[in-house]
């Protein structure tokens, strides 16, 4: 259980880091499209600023999404079966689109600017898919086969 929690925190941090970096680059690409020159120094500083400024909000959004998604994945695998990793990847795939939709539906806006475009949402989703896959991979070693042959987490 403790290992699962540690892995969850780790993979959520990885997802946050990746989404945050991608988010900054999308915003900077927009700024460049307005004709402004973004140097490497500016890019590095902006990325670091976002890790501090945007990171905590992203971490909360992703951790809540992952928590719900991973629980669903766990029980879906337990009661429906199939490939365990694919269930977690599916949960990673839905985390950001569903979170974005819920915020848009409830507040009438998309708070994370970088996912307002399909390409931005796709890239953020890919980051979450990778992190969810990593979670599935790192928690595989805690599995045992039960009598029914279905793998369950300890």
């Amino acid at each position, binding site marked *: 259980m403790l290992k699962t929690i540690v892995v969850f925190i780790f993979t959520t941090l990885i997802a946050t880091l990746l989404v945050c970096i991608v*988010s*900054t680059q999308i*915003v*900077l690409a*927009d*700024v460049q*499209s*307005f*004709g*402004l020159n*973004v140097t490497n120094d*500016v890019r590095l*500083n*902006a990325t670091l*600023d*976002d890790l*501090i*400024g*945007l*990171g*905590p*909000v*992203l971490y909360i959004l992703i951790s809540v999404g992952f928590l719900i998604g991973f629980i669903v994945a766990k029980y879906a695998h337990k009661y429906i079966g199939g490939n365990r990793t694919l269930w977690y990847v599916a949960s990673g795939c839905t985390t950001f689109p569903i979170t974005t939709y819920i915020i848009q539906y409830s507040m*009438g*806006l*998309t*708070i*994370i*600017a*970088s996912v*307002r475009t399909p390409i931005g949402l796709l890239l953020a989703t890919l980051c979450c898919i990778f992190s969810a896959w990593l979670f599935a991979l790192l928690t595989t070693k805690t599995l045992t086969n039960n009598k029914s042959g279905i793998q369950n987490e300890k």
Partner: protein
Amino acid sequence: MKSSYPFFRKVRFSLFLIMTNSLILINANAQDYKVSTVVKNLNFPWSIAFLPNNDMLITERSGNLRLVSDGKLLEEKVTGLPDIYVSGPAGLFDVVLDPNFVKNKKLYISYSAGTPSNNYVEVISATLQGMSLQQTQVIFQGSSRNTPHHHGARMTFLPDNTLLITAGDGFNFRDQAQSLESLLGKVLRINTDGSIPKDNPFIGQANARAEIYTYGHRNPQAILVSKAKQVWLHEHGPKGGDELNLIKPGLNYGWPAITYGEDYSGAIISPFKEAQGMEQPVTYWVPSIAPAGMTEYQGTMFPQWQGNLFVAALAGKSVRRLSLENNNVVEQETMLGDRNQRLRDIRTGPDGYIYVLTDSIEGELLKISPVQ
């Protein structure tokens, strides 16, 4: 008790001077003005227009046009408004009188129309006949969006009787503020029949909407033409970066390429605060005060405030009095802060008093008058 130590005598004297000066300062401020409530029970009032007979038209965001006559809010509402999309900050917005209202009874009203997935700012012209709008005609329709936020929708007349309309960026569409193909995030200029003035700055330019007067705005919440015939505008920034701008045709005011604010999520919007070819604000507010409504005082009740700009603030819950010299803000005073009310609009009445609308489901019309 008499102190025998010179040091303590100096400290006591200094304290005496500080207290005396403070009392004089407090007294001076207290004598400047008083605030009284003219009308209560307004449902999120948004804008005021003064009729020639000193009655007032007040828009309520919830979709009603109200009349204040002889200092009383009439129960009867002005009829004839079109269908209005009311949701959150979207609804009925501004009302301005035609410069020739005395003769033609025409007025102009901005509001949000459409549906949650496809809404836009519209402006109608109509004639006011009694408590009814007649000869209603849509003269402007803004770009479509799917959010109820950032409409702008403030209006004013230029001296040539063309109409300026502010347009917000729709929140989710901030990039379009830099696109000349979109009407979002702009100041727009049209004739009162809806046609486009032939001397608009982007007339004839490929891939540019001819209505555009200036661009690069976020959510302009006030626009006025000063006595010196300058166009002043203020706009909401994101978290920080509300701006007061001096508007000149054809110019780019920078949003979201340059900004003094950051996103509500904490993310950067741009690493730049200034750039070549983009205008700097005359002043800006960090943290945000959410300015809403503005008037240049040219009345007779407060001679000491002649030419000052007064800005109402929603988040700032106060009025900011800006004293200007050579188009620079040289002094800023916070007024009405003790009332702790969100303020939506501020206007100078034809009687020289300053009128303020509070932003509340139980909104009020306040009057600022000199202490006798």
